[in-house]
């Protein structure tokens, strides 16, 4: 490679430019359109951006029902009822076909899993409460009261076509295992549909 004298250099290749004289051709990449597109995309994505984390993992086999009168999802244990299996926070606990045919409403595996998870959540919550009491004493000013039963909330995420008896069995088991407030995961129905 040639060695050049140090100094200023033209960005569009000085040597070529000099040789071609007046009719030098400079091809410039027009970045304006791309920058425009980027700006529009960033604005759109920023508008869509929500600071909250996704509370529940959407299951690929599940088609959620739609509803108009909805509330924002709160953190809770998620019981997923798909056409194939029943899951608690990504752990498979039962087969849906077996549950459909079984006479007893109690789903043993689900009961055990929920009970275990709730016991852990309760312990965590109480530890947190102790910490908070200590904080309150130190700061002599408390935050707004947190819901004392926030640890035992359950969200049921079920396929819209699953029979109601299976959902009732899940609800019964969850309540028996100590679950408190039960919520159903739904999708927001578009405003302009006529129902």
């Amino acid at each position, binding site marked *: 490679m040639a060695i050049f004298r140090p100094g200023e250099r033209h960005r569009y290749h000085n040597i070529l430019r000099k040789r071609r004289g007046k009719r030098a051709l400079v091809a410039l990449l027009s970045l304006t359109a791309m920058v425009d597109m980027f700006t529009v995309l960033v604005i759109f994505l920023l508008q869509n951006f929500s600071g909250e984390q996704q509370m529940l993992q*959407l299951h690929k086999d599940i088609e959620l029902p739609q509803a108009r*009168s909805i509330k924002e999802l709160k953190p809770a244990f998620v019981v997923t009822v798909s056409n194939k299996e029943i899951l608690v926070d990504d752990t498979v606990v039962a087969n849906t076909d077996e549950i459909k045919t079984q006479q007893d409403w109690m789903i043993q595996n689900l009961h055990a899993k929920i009970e275990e998870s709730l016991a852990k959540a309760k312990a965590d919550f109480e530890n947190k409460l102790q910490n908070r009491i200590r904080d309150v004493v130190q700061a002599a000013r408390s935050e707004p009261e947190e819901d004392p039963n926030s640890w035992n909330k359950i969200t049921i995420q079920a396929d819209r076509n699953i029979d*109601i008896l299976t959902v009732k069995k899940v609800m019964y088991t969850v309540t028996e295992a100590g679950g408190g407030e039960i*919520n159903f995961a739904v*999708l927001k129905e578009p405003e302009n549909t006529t*129902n």
Partner: protein
Amino acid sequence: MADIQEGGKGRGRAKSVELNLVPFIDLMSVLITFLLITAVWTQVSMIQIGSSLYGKKSDSQPNPEPPPMSNIVLKVDVKSAGYVLTAGTQMISLPVLAGGEYDDAGLVAQLQRVKQLYPEKIDAVVAVEDPLPYNQLIKAMDNLLISGFSAISVATGGPN
């Protein structure tokens, strides 16, 4: 590109002021990638069972106060033939429409009439036939919530 060129015709030195867009494009690319990854495309929400009035009680929890006017029965039965609304002693049957769809608009209208009669009442019971799809329960609950009955209970037994 984004540059300002001045002079060039006269004897003075041509002045070329060029805006450096590279860091800007870099920033945009990083932002777009981040926002695309964190974007949530489906808004999952929830519908709430109103009260645990009839639910299992734990020892530590006090019994909840019954909602106002809870002595008046308000029950929505979802049957394969349609909705049956029980409000107090009155029973209103809303059969399935000709297209095979449930009469949601009719149910909402009847529920709003009940709400006008008893404005303070917020509790209601939904009973769904076992073989019906779960979607029907959500629809019935949604209709009750729209009409202003927020404390919904789901009956484990089927409709009468």
